């Protein structure tokens, strides 16, 4: 046993060692590297940057950064207040309605508890909601329902459904089957089974995800105003248009503070339910 090994080591002494490459086939490795490098070159070449314009913009950039040191909360206080309230209102309503709708759809989109037709229908809804972005949905809904927070509310609810149902369904699909079976074995009807066998298992995660989604909804509500769907975005857009950087800085600071607060709260709540 030891003799052949000793031979083997003698053959290896003096041989250069190299880390085995990630992609074993050399031609594939080089094709991938060359393809990526080629893409990067092409991408850089096709981007048109007006460096003069960028250079001129540096002053404005500096002005904007400076504006953060002296944000102006007061001169447009009325607009900011209204916009923030509208954003919060949209966040609250859309989160409540979105979460309420996404629970049944999430149940329906879990293959292990829903019959096939229901499963397909629910998965379809989830797929559509996830593929369409908030801002595009908002444009369409503004066209249909007119300007205002109603369109924003509907947009966020719709987006919440796609996000939450998918994750809820995945959570249900990966739950512990034995616990659920034990409840079923006791002769529980379907609703009781969900209530006792499934709900306790997925509840902590559902609460965590809901908190996370509220956070996202607030952030998204800040841009819906750009397309006329209500919220702080409209105020922000106006501030940028008028080059009122100090007001814009104030609004951005407010958004960051609210998001941080929400994250902090959701951290506490998640720690408590888990």
């Amino acid at each position, binding site marked *: 046993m030891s003799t052949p*090994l*000793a031979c*083997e*080591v003698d053959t*290896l*002494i*003096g*041989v*250069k*060692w*190299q*880390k*085995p490459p990630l992609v074993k086939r050399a031609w594939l490795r080089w094709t991938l590297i060359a393809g990526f490098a080629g893409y990067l070159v092409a991408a850089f070449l096709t981007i048109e940057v007006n460096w003069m314009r960028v250079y001129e913009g540096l002053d404005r950039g500096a002005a904007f950064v400076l504006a953060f040191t002296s944000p102006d909360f007061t001169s447009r206080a009325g607009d900011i207040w209204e916009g923030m309230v509208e954003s919060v209102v949209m966040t609250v309503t859309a989160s409540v309605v979105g979460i309420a709708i996404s629970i049944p759809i999430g149940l329906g989109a879990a293959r292990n508890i829903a019959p096939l037709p229901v499963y397909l229908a629910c998965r379809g809804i989830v797929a559509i909601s996830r593929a369409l972005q908030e801002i595009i949905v908002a444009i369409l809904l503004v066209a249909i329902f007119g300007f205002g927070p109603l369109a924003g509310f509907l947009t966020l609810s719709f987006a919440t459904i796609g996000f939450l149902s998918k994750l809820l369904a995945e959570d249900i699909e990966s739950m512990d089957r034995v616990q659920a079976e034990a409840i079923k074995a006791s002769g529980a009807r379907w609703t009781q089974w969900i209530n006792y066998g499934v709900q306790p298992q997925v509840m902590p995660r559902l609460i965590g995800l809901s908190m996370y989604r509220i956070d996202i909804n607030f952030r998204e509500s800040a841009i819906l105003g750009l397309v006329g769907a209500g919220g702080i975005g409209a105020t922000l857009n106006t501030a940028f248009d008028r080059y009122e950087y100090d007001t814009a800085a104030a609004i951005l600071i407010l958004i960051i503070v609210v998001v941080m607060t929400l994250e902090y709260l959701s951290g506490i709540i998640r720690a408590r339910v888990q």
Partner: protein
Amino acid sequence: MLRLKKLLKTYKTGDEALKSIDLEVPDGQVLALIGPSGAGKSTMIRCINRLVEPTSGEVWLDDTELTKLSSGALRQERRQMGMIFQEYALVERLTVMENVLSGRLGYVGFWRSFLRKFPQSDVDEAYRLLDRVGLLSMVDKRADELSGGQRQRVGICRALIQNPKLLLVDEPTASLDPKTSRQIMRLICELCAERGLAAIINIHDVALAQMFVSRVVGLRLGALEFDGAPQELTPDVLTTIYGEEDWEATIEKVEDDEEEQVA
């Protein structure tokens, strides 16, 4: 020669892990450090190469006092002390060869090590060591593909390729099955004998310690309780180190084991 003088470690929590340890380990001596969990065995080993900063006291490795060294000089000295860990502590996503070569990090510059361009002499030595521990065929396997015993052998190679004077071994067998534990212990002791290395081996398995080493040091609550040959470990001594228990069985088992251990 390693000398510890009044080595003391108090953690921020106020726990006195080491209470003024004095110890001398001559060149080429393999020493087993026994004691219950929390006795300060790990802390002591880590205070020697300053993975844990001692609170006070001195650590002499030959003519260098380690506790006062700057971080650069400390790195130079760490190269003299190979360390072997409890849970192997291999970098799991690197290959066996990379793990072994990482023992040479103290000798090569950053970019060379980053680009994996180690000197050929290091690579040769790595092959020799892997051959010695019987893992030559595993060179390009990733460390997380190996079994526990194999990983610990890689860990041993990583420590030895540093070309150390001293091995610090922290519970080398704690996560291994009894047979592999013995093989690993035997390997470590054989290698120490071959290369004339001194070693401090933390081990909680008294029987295993008695089987392989020439000197045993017992630690209890951060203080030295026993220092002597393995034969001197009587039930009374074990009781002072570990507390009241029927020790006869343990010691007898050792003798039985020694008979059958020829394979």
